[in-house]
């Protein structure tokens, strides 16, 4: 029971790591992840790759349309497409 309390599976570690990319992991979850990170090579590789992806997205300063904007463009486009098909 105690062991389960302190140690997490690789799947749990992945989940916490994913949440941590969006600042949604709690301090306790991060501690558990770090404990596994210390001894598990696969966890370390996953964390590093995941962080690299987050850094890339941040550096690229990507922009995208929000759902409302996309819906609006799609609606206008569909109208135009229907006209064209007539």
């Amino acid at each position: 029971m105690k062991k389960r309390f302190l140690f997490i599976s690789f799947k749990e570690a992945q989940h916490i790591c994913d949440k941590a990319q969006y600042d949604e992991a709690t301090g306790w979850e991060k501690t558990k992840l770090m404990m596994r990170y210390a001894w598990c090579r696969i966890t370390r590789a996953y964390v590093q790759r995941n962080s690299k992806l987050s850094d890339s997205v941040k550096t690229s300063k990507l922009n995208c349309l929000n759902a409302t904007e996309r819906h609006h463009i799609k609606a206008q486009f569909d109208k135009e497409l229907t006209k064209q098909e007539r």
Partner: protein
Amino acid sequence: MPKHLINPDHWIDRYSDYLFNFTISRVSDREISKDLVQDTFFAGLKSMKNFKGEASERTWLISILKRKIIDHYRKINSKKGQAEVRMTYNTNEDEGDWLEERVADPFDKTAQDTLENEELGDAIYSCLEKLPEKQAIVFKMKTIEGLETEAICNELNITPSNLWVIVHRARTAMAECMEKTWFN
């Protein structure tokens, strides 16, 4: 037989964000960018019969968009020209540098940084295009738009645990793709 086929039915889902990102980095205005992207899709529809299939749909749409952006700047410059004429005839000396200040680039970016970020952005969008639609939507909402988990779940009508499964799959696929195309 052409190397690439054209299918406007999926243009918005596949290319609207890529085109929008391309535009906003050049015109720095969200509303204008949206209009230019929409105009590009309309123009694409009208000139579909000119698509020879030598380049991909995305490349073809970008070439239309580039012309739209140039036209936009031409319009601005012609307005700027009119403003300059007005300024020449303005007798108020304090307003002499008004136009230059308006036109000056407010961002302290080097050309090199901008180019690298743009190439990185292209690589990310190319990888995003390879994801299943749902994963791409969730990844964009969560990672690019930075929306809260609850907001995405409400919008897409999914549970938080379902969202994290999708996020995990999307991130794994994105990281693999980026490793092949960018990191190495």
